Structures are given as C-alpha cells and as structure tokens.
C-alpha cells in the first residue's frame, strides 16, 4: 500500500511531503483520500491543534507525465526564499530525492509551481523501490532537513517460468549450433551465463560448451534467449575444434540445467529450476532442401491447415517467420504452428481457402539445428576450395501448391 511517513522537526513542526502521480490514485482514489484525511487529522492533533503548515492532500496532480514528489503548505516567507534560490539555480539542492540508503541524489528537475515545490525525477520511479526525499529546511527556516521515505506500490510481480526449451527433441546432432530458452516473462540481462550449465550423464559440467557474448542474445521481447555454441569448436579444421573437440559426444546424454536464481526483468526468480535432457547423434552437415519437404494441401472452402513435414528438425525461432504463404502476390494472413520436435509446420488461414494456386515462400536463411541454411552449409571451408559467392543462392525459395475446386 501507499506509505506516508512524517516526523516532527526540531522546532516541533510538521511538514508533509506527498507522492503525486496517477499510478495509485487511479486505482485507489477513495482509499487514498481516506488515508490522507487520517494523516491530516493526526498531524493536526500532533501539533497541538496548531496547524503550522500543511494540509495533506492526496489528490491527483494532472498535467504531469510521470509520478514525482512535491512539498505543499509552504508559507509566504518560504516561497519568497525559494524564489530567491530558484533565481540562483539552487532549487535542486534544497529539495532532493534519493534511492533509499544512497547519498547521491537522483537526477531531477525542481520547480516552484505557485505554492508548491515540485520534484520531477528524470527517470520514472520504480514500483516497489524505496525512496527518500529531503527538504533542506535550513535553507528555508533554519531548521534541520526533513527526510521522508516512500515505497511505491505496484501490481504483484508474476513469477517467471521456463516456457520452452528448443530443440525440443530428445536427440540433437553433435554439431548443434544453438538452443533457445523461452520464458513466460521478460528476463533480466546479465544473468544468463551464470544461470545455465550442461552436465554429462555423471553430473559433471561440460566446460566451455557455449559462447558467452557480453551483450547476451535476446529477442526483442526479452522472453527468448539464444544459447550459441562456440562455432570455432564445431567447425572442423579450426584451431578450437582441434584443441577442444566438440562439446558433446555422440551417443551420450546431456542435461541442460537452468537455475531458478535467474530473475525476470522485474527481479523475480524463476519458479523452479529447469532440466532438459537430450541424446547426441551423428553430426548434421546437410543443408535443408525444400524440394524434399512433404506438403499436404488443404481443401477449398475449409480452414484446414496447410501442412509441411521437413523430415528433420529446423530452427525454432526462425520458423516463426521464415515461411509465408502467398496467393497471387498477396500474403495470406493466418497462424502458424510448429510441432513434432520442430520437424513439422502448419498454417491455418484466417479466411477459408479458395481454389487457386498458392506459393509457399521460404527465407533461404532458414537453418537446421547445425546452422546449415537453405542457402549455404555451415562448414563452407571444408566443402569448397575457393569460396564463390554465386554458389550460395540467398533468394527466397518458392514451393507451389494448388487447391482444386473439388
């Protein structure tokens, strides 16, 4: 709940500082007004009925784009003094806000708005954080500074969960290039590499299995993390491959452990640790070939899904956007589903299929689990003596299918 704190200063006077903004008042206007009244009454009696100053108000201050702090109940003498300080550019040193326990004030703009002293933080206040505001009363009334603390209330933070681990299949090729972790909420940056590890069947850690990129590889939503295995370890012939060999051995079973200490962007830990085991099979050095895919066309007038079987698992993240369906140059709107360990893809249109010719357009960057894309194999260097860019056709691939009127 919203927290008001108030103290007596050395002169026995009460000055109140209130938090303003719409984050609370929109939600609990009656409650806030009630609290405000109680505090005001307490203040009145605490000062022996001599209301020196300040009427606590909990009304919404409009015209402000983010919550801040303000001082109300200033006397004419206070305002005159503040006007002086303002003209000297010293208001920021009179009224300051701090993260609780810190000595450096937050960046903020302080303005004298009629009879109020308003502090607008440069950055939005964080829900759940504790702040202190200090009014340098010595500048005003020769008294010691007043300090008040506030904790900003907010909605309950949801506990994040691991929503998926990809490849989801029990078997992965030895030259696996990437894994994806999907979470139910945006996650905190800077924690990934401390929170994941691979164990062999005896529970021993696989050293240096994956790359640690300081920037971390997230999608734009912050919910999908990419584990990139060291391509230098995977590519045959490169120094690291010779030195370290591949991180996973064929025929062995490994377990990816995701620690529950990994926190969401709201700094809430995962609900539980996640373990995902897989068995390693022979390396995959063959490019995906759309001409070998199996297509099952739907029937006219139906909402049946268009169905493709790749005959092998493909990259889970890219499957969300790498395949599109066109009808006479118009993209057909619909929903895609990926299933059976990322070996199958289906597409359900928003509108029923009509009898026509359709084109399935496939991004040639689409990769299998080992980084072989439709356009080029992962291990270029071991396959071609002289690299010739024209060998790699990066244009989208097109597959045709027809829906007949029968």
């Amino acid at each position, binding site marked *: 709940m919203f927290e008001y704190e108030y103290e007596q200063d050395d002169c026995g006077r009460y000055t109140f500082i209130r938090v303003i903004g719409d984050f609370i008042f929109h939600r609990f206007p009656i409650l806030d007004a009630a609290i405000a009244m109680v505090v005001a009454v307490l203040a009145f009696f605490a000062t022996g009925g001599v209301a020196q100053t300040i009427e606590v108000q909990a009304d919404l201050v409009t015209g402000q784009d983010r919550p801040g702090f303000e001082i109300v109940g200033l006397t004419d003498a206070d305002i005159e003094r503040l006007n002086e300080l303002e003209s000297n550019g010293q208001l920021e040193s009179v009224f300051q806000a701090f993260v609780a326990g*810190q000595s450096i004030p937050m960046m903020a703009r302080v303005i004298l708005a009629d009879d109020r002293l308003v502090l607008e*933080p440069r950055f939005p206040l964080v829900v759940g954080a504790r702040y202190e505001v200090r009014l340098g009363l010595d500048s005003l009334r020769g008294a010691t500074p007043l300090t008040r603390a506030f904790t900003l209330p907010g909605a309950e933070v949801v506990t994040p969960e691991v929503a998926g681990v990809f490849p989801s299949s029990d078997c992965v090729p030895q030259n696996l290039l990437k894994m994806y972790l999907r979470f139910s909420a945006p996650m905190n940056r800077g924690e990934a590499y401390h929170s994941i590890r691979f164990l062999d069947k005896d529970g021993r850690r696989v050293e240096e299995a994956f790359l640690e990129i300081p920037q971390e590889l997230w999608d734009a939503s912050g919910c*999908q993390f990419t584990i990139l295995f060291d391509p230098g370890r995977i590519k045959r012939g490169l120094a690291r491959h010779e*030195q370290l060999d591949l991180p996973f051995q064929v025929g062995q079973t490994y377990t990816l452990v995701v620690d529950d200490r990994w926190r969401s962007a709201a*700094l809430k830990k995962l609900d539980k640790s996640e373990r995902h085991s897989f068995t390693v099979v022979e390396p995959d050095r063959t490019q995906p070939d759309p001409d070998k895919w199996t297509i099952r066309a739907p029937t006219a007038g139906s909402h049946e899904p268009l169905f493709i079987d790749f005959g092998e698992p493909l990259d889970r993240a890219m499957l969300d956007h790498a395949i599109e369906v066109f009808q006479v140059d118009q993209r057909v709107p619909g929903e895609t589903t990926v299933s059976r360990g990322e070996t199958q893809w289906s597409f359900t249109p928003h509108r029923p299929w009509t009898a026509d010719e359709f084109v399935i357009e496939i991004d040639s960057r689409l*990769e299998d689990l080992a980084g072989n894309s439709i356009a080029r194999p992962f291990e270029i*260097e071991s396959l071609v003596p002289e690299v010739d860019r024209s060998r790699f056709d990066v244009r989208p691939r097109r597959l045709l299918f027809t829906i007949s009127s029968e």
Partner: protein
Amino acid sequence: MKAARLLYCLSVIAMLVTTAEAQEHLQKLQRGTAELKFAGPLAFGPDGVLFVGDPVSASVFALDTGDRQSSEFNPEFRIDQLEQKIAASLGVSAESIVINDLAVNPISGTPYLSLSRGSGPDAEAVILKLAADGSLTELSLKDIPHAVAALPNPPDQGDTDRRGRSQRMVSITDIALIDNQVVVAGLSNEEFSSSLRAIPYPFSADVAGTALEVYHGAHGKYETSAPVRTFTAITVDNEPYVVAAYTCTPLVRFPLDEVTRGEKIRGTTVAELGNWNSPLDMFVYEQDGKPFILMANSARGMMKISTENIQRDEGITEHVTDGGTAGQPYETIEELKSAVQLDKFGPDHAIVILKDESGRHDLKVVPLP
C-alpha cells in the same frame, strides 16, 4: 622567414579546410530527438560526434555532443563504485544498471558511458558524461543534432508488424569509424550470418552500407561468419589495416581498403592468443615510435600485443595445441586483469573500468603499459 610565413599560411589554409569539412558533416546532422532504443557500443568520430550502436532499432546513431572544447586529460581521473553512483543518480538499484560501453572524447578527454537503466525490453537507453569530481551528467537525446543509419539487413520489421512479434535481433559487439566508414560488428540471435558491415559517414539516406563477407585462410580453409568481438584500425609501415579479435580465431588482419570498399575481405590470422577466452575491447597506441594493441579479455587478462611484423604475408597456418599461443608476441598486464571496459585516454594513458569479484566497478586512469 618567407618559408615560415608560407608554412603559417599553409597551416591556416589547412585549418580553414578542416573547419569547412567539420562544418559540412556537422551541418548534415538534424536537430531533434534521437530515438535511441538501446545505447550499445560507442565510438567517437570527428569534432565530438559520438557514434552509438543500437541493436534494438538495428541502427547506428551519430550524435553531436557539442563537446569540442580541447582540454587537458586529467590522469587523476577516478570514480570508485561507479555502478552504485550511476544507479543512485538514475533512481534505481545497482543491479538495474548495465554499463554497455565506455568511450573518451579525444578532444576534451571526457569519458562517456552507454548504459541500460532497468532490465528487460523496457530498459531505458542512457548516455552519461563523467566528470573528474565524480559527477554524472546525462547527454540529453532531446533536441540534439544527430543522424541515423539503418544497418543493412535489419530485423524483419515487416514480420513484427504483421504478426505482433519481434523475434529477430542483431546484437552489436563493436563499432568504429575507420576512414569515413562506420564499421559495425555484430551477430544475430537467430541465423548465423556475416557479422561485419560498413556504412559511409556522413550518413546518407540512400546508402545503407554493405555487409562484408569475411574469409581467412589457414590450410586453404575459410572461416566466414564467426562473430567479431572487437576490432581496431592500425597503420604499420604506412599501410592501414583493420585488426579484429574473433571469438574462435583470436586476431585477424584485414587490408583497410578492402573493408572500406565493402568487398569480399581476405583476412590473415596473425595471432592465436589462447582458448577459454573472449576478447572484450581493444585499441592501438604508440610507444617509442612503435604501435601496440591493448586488448582486454574475459579470462586471459589485459594483453599488450606487439605489432612487429604484423603485416607479414604468411598468417598462422599451424594449429596451436594444448591451449598455447602463437603469432604476435604479447605480455599480460596483471594489474589490469579485471578490466571490463577500456579506452585510450590521451597519448600516454588508458581509462579502464575494473570489476572485482563482488561486482563492484571502479573507473580509473592508468599509464599505458
């Protein structure tokens, strides 16, 4: 006397030309709000222009800091517990601050930091200027002369718009202005693709830059798409090169003209600096008339790398075994082992951010080793 006068006249003309050039590129910057979504790698260009890599909007921003007042570099510059101070100023706890990069304005000696305030996709992009007294000032992104260049082959925004999803991102690992080209190194969170791109500066709406195809030879084999972690430009015997530190093949040399022409680039591996390690950041400096590379690493500490004979034709062709090293000789600077950020600070110093095991970050200036 005449000669001196002529020299003076020539230098004045040269200054006027330089000023005119400076004005020209600055005049191409438009005043307004720089819509920076993520403040990533930093690099200073001419006349206080700061380049900022933004992986979220897949763009490079050129910001006119207006910081063109030449100043003495202060070797006493030091800010302890930097992260705590930044966090307090920005109104959050230290765990909600990520320092993404550090760059020093070579004119004024002012260090700049790019950072994220908050965590997750809603983190706010912030650029701070640091002062020797420990005070922090924000470089306001409002009403600032700037230009934006979209990276070639950016994320598929079209897909994002149609489907309400935005999955693909290009993470930027380093940027630098090299011979009027902003060179950008990065990698995608999805496909494994070419990771070095060059964009001509001043930015022009119709020139989006080129994705560079990188090859390097060893045993007749080619490495193409491994992520470049950090790179720098270097001139040896009047020949300019780009030296890039890879994740899996540490130090590779490219001819500068191939990089700036945006062509297929042939790299030569000039050093293997050991495994179990990722290079973090590097720059070139001169000592006793010889160029050296100073490179920070994740595990192998700070390396002072000799560039002696770095221009040789033959690269490393033998595999290095048992985690050993080969190629350019180097020495490890023990006291800078924990450096996570660094930049050049005047002709004789480096500025570093050291991170200890407790996570505390201290910024300080050290003599170049």
